[in-house]
């Protein structure tokens, strides 16, 4: 899925899209993050922002300090030096997010959309149909039966794109057309092969299957998990979903409201890319 060489696409006079390959998979995304880290380490003063995404990254730069030609040549040199491919180990936090599947708020949001678009199949049932799940219980079991790789952050502060690491847990769903004008805070959605968590009430297009009472964004930095950052996740973290009942969801919401909810976060873990890829191959995945 990797291209033979980087493909550079100018985005106006201050940004470049650098495409490494075509597809959504762990190896490609891991290579994106390796290259972005190497570009960051090169400390090119004219670079203002780097946005790693699934199969590409964006560089924002000051064109009065470096030309498009020089910057793309420099990035190509860095890529030639580090090479493509995924191996090694990296620190990777494991964060477990409680989820109330088919909760009240996403159910109400879906019904609100269906008032305007009555032909829209209810999200969890659509996902079940398209992926061969017998019922919503089976959907919740598969969705919560894998770790996810935080592949990218974007669209909104803290919004994360999660790739399932267990090959057989890949769940596909089309995006809304047209998009929703609102989504409940904490909603869990599936779009393409990705899961996302909505950090706030925002527009959106992923099929909604549940909601987490644990915040992933805290502009006021009230909770301990947000001491160092307004956003919970970093690229390279791993996430697990733990199904909870309505009662437990309410209990967690009360703890969040009182300001003493502690996220379930294991800080000391290291993720071995080689061992993961060997395991995924054995599971019949494309890695």
């Amino acid at each position, binding site marked *: 899925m990797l291209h033979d060489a980087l493909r550079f696409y100018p985005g106006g006079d201050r940004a470049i899209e650098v495409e490494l390959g075509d597809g959504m998979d762990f190896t490609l995304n891991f290579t994106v993050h390796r290259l972005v880290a190497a570009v960051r380490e090169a400390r090119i003063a004219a670079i203002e922002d780097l946005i790693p995404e699934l199969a590409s990254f964006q560089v924002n730069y000051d064109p009065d300090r470096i030309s498009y030609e020089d910057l793309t040549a420099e990035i190509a040199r860095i890529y030639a030096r580090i090479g493509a491919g995924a191996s090694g180990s990296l620190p990777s936090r494991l964060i477990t997010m409680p989820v109330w599947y088919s909760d009240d708020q996403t159910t109400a949001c879906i019904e609100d959309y269906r008032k305007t678009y009555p032909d829209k199949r209810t999200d969890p049932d659509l996902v079940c149909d398209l992926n061969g799940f017998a019922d919503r219980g089976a959907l919740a079991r598969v969705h919560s039966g894998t770790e996810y790789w935080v592949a990218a952050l974007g669209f909104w*502060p803290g919004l994360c794109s999660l790739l399932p690491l267990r090959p057989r847990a890949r769940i596909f769903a089309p995006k809304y057309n047209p998009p929703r004008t609102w989504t409940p805070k904490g909603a869990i959605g599936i779009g393409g092969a990705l899961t996302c968590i909505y950090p706030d009430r925002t527009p959106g297009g992923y099929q909604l299957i549940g909601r987490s009472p644990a915040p992933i964004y805290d502009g006021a930095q009230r909770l301990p998990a947000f001491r160092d950052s307004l956003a919970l996740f970093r690229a390279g973290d791993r996430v697990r979903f733990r199904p909870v009942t309505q009662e437990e969801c309410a209990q967690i919401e009360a703890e969040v409201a009182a300001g003493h909810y502690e996220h379930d976060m294991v800080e000391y873990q290291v993720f071995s890319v080689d061992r993961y890829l060997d395991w995924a191959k054995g599971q019949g995945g494309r890695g």
Partner: protein
Amino acid sequence: MSQRSISVVKPGLETTVQELPGRIGFLEQGFPVSGPFDAWSFRQANLLVGNDRDTAALECQFLGPALRFDCDAVVAVTGADMRPMLDGAPVAMWSSHVVRAGQILALGPAYSGARAYVAISGGVDTPVVLGSRAVFHMAGVGGRALVGDQVLPLGAADPVTLEAPGLTIPPALRPNFTTDRRWDIEALAGPNDDWLSPETVEMFFASDWAVQAKSNRTGIRLTGPEFGFAHRAIHKNSDHGQEPSNIIDHGYPLGAVNLAGQTPIILVNDAPSTGGFINPFTVASAAFWKLAQAKPGDILRFRRIDRAEAGRLRAELGRVTSSGVTTVA
């Protein structure tokens, strides 16, 4: 020295504190750059009151605020003509004015353009969040739009003397707001122009595009002809999604013409950092100010330029927003 401040009498329509260069370095976590939409007018306002040109000031949208000064200050209003009044008497746009403690500066609706800037000597001194005072209103990053009775702290400034000469920006150096409601917008092809048919790329630069009312600091929505797609937009890896304009999530450049289905949306200061739609064209950075001043119903025509011309436009914009452009009124 006592704390200098202004109080909000009327907030106006989504008036925000903005600062340059905006929130740099946090796009990878999903935080937009924000900052003033029309940096040309913003910088000239700051230069008029003796500030560094990138100092935090107020951006007023469509309907301006009324502000009571709790201290003496020098102010300037630039950008959209909101007919500013000081204690009920008209004061000139694009000029500096001495304001005494207790006086009220009131802006009205925009007669030409859409966004006005109010710079105050010493600058607005709200807390810095993630490296900037720029407000991303929708997520409340760096604060939100002004509300009534809010008190805005100001930075330190030299004592105001009435004898100080007023400054102005010569008309030839101000941004030129069109009177016929048509704007020529310089734009570059890419990053995803190869997802459109060659005829559609030609069509884009040859058509009128009307600004929709549903436009704001996250995006300028346009109405115009239908888009046709290239082979690669229709026959692609299923990871890209079903619609021709769907692409695997990627970064969104500032000024990109983003195509969601058949609706082009120009992504501006508070736009999403990433997403799953193609960006066939990108507005030149030196032309962003025009997007800030275009009103709903205005017509945009895009003129195709290359990177070299974008560089010349940037240099020109840099010249008219440098210290030394002000003259004694």
